[in-house]
């Protein structure tokens, strides 16, 4: 049971970023490997607002979502938009380069030391004999609410429907009168805010590490692939699968191998069910 709670905590950190990753993929048809870099930006933005500036953590988290939304929008404007129409492989390579740039900017600004939020010490909560840190309960609750909120946004609101329509067929959306560039910009901002939220949750549950980039990027991408690229609900479920796989690996082998779980899961999914859990098969043209 304890392992399941740990898995949920891991999933809670990964889920918003995995949903953001799949949102960008569905809108622009490329895998943005700078996901880990953006999560790191979120973690350090929240830390800056919380520890040095003394704001409460919730304000730090909201600020981090704003900072990350700005960072992702800026990267889209400066880096990716000029390359629209290039192949997904080209954009993937560009995103890897961008992730290294972000990682080094973070190191330059904040040094190589691991940071922690300024949080009061609290005792654990006890559920049916299980001792669960209050921070973990908060991390799981906030991630769940955020993921459900994004699902509701995409399903029940006009802008969410427009986002799905543009992701489905942007040229048709254009002739149907939808403001495609505005809808895409909205999607980018939502994705950025979700990266910022993941960054904040990483800092609460684990640590704020300048080397976080690839350690978080691989499981985030694995979660999105497991769920089926293009399905936000699938990405959230994929995050739970990755969380469980990481905890099982730590329990039965060694925590050292946790980092390899993402790679193994990606390989297995691509071999056994390339479309992921909730994705749909597409034919190569």
């Amino acid at each position, binding site marked *: 049971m304890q392992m399941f709670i740990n898995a949920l905590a891991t999933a809670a950190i990964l889920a918003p970023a995995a949903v953001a990753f799949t949102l960008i993929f569905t809108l622009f048809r490329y895998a943005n490997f700078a996901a880990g870099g953006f999560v790191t930006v979120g973690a350090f933005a929240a830390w800056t607002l919380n520890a040095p500036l003394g704001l409460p953590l919730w304000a730090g988290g909201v600020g981090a979502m704003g900072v990350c939304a700005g960072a992702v929008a800026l990267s889209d404007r400066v880096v990716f938009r000029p390359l629209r129409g290039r192949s997904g492989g080209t954009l993937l390579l560009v995103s890897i380069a961008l992730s290294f740039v972000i990682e080094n900017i973070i190191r330059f600004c904040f040094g190589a030391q691991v940071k922690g939020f300024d949080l009061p010490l609290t005792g654990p909560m006890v559920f049916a004999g299980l001792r669960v840190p209050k921070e973990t309960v908060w991390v799981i609750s906030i991630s769940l609410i955020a993921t459900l909120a994004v699902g509701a946004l995409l399903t029940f609101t006009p802008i969410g429907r427009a986002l799905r329509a543009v992701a*489905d067929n942007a040229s048709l959306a254009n002739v149907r009168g939808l403001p495609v560039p505005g809808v895409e910009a909205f999607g980018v901002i939502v994705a950025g805010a979700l990266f910022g939220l993941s960054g904040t949750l990483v800092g609460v549950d684990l640590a704020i590490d300048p080397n976080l980039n690839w350690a978080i990027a691989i499981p985030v991408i694995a979660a999105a692939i497991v769920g089926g690229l293009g399905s936000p609900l699938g990405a959230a479920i994929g995050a739970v699968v990755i969380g469980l796989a990481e905890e099982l690996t730590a329990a039965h082998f060694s925590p050292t191998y946790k980092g390899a779980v993402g790679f193994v899961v990606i390989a297995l999914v691509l071999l056994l069910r390339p479309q992921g859990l909730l994705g749909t098969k597409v034919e190569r043209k």
Partner: protein
Amino acid sequence: MTLLCLQNLRAGYGGGDIVHGVDLAVAPGEMVALVGPNGAGKSTLLKAIAGVAKVTGGTLTLDERNLIPLTPAARAQAGAVFMPQDRNVFRTLTVTENLSVSAWGCRDIAQRRAEVTSLLPTMRPYMHKRAGGLSGGQRQMVALGMALMARPRVLLVDEPTAGLSPLLVGEMLDVLRELAAAAALGILIVEQNARAALERADRALVLVDGRVVRSGSAAVLAQEPDFGALFFGEAA
């Protein structure tokens, strides 16, 4: 009264003109068929009016409003609504969602949806299905419904019967004919089944190599003895 007016319109995709100086007018309630052999520039002409292909010269007005500076989205909102030949529905959205999203920015979406489903009642049984799972005929009906959600003044329809069975071809063209009359809608239609289109259209233009080579009453054109042989390679 003229709704859509083209004068000496030239258009293409950036590598030279495909449409060379077309004059055309569509009145409210009128169905005008654009016919001609493959590669004549019929679809390009529709796309130029919709803003998808580039207009390189001439004038293009809807209700005397110049459409040329407008984006495709703005032209749709102005009333010139394009129904593409293929990939004309959002496959991952339900039919209801497809209709709703096609009235972007409107406050009366539910009312418009009710109007469209009353005009196209065959859609009712599959309103909650994903558009990607529908048959070709059902998809074309949804695409037409989506175009109607914008309350168009003029509907630019590109080969609405492509891939449909012969029975559905007639049905689709009849629906368009009835819509033109019921909603005072101008319809400019490109149709591969030229004879079926001419039977329903009020007027027709024959386009060859991007130029109008013949125009007039659809019924009269359809009766011309050399019509099929000249323009469609049919045996005389």
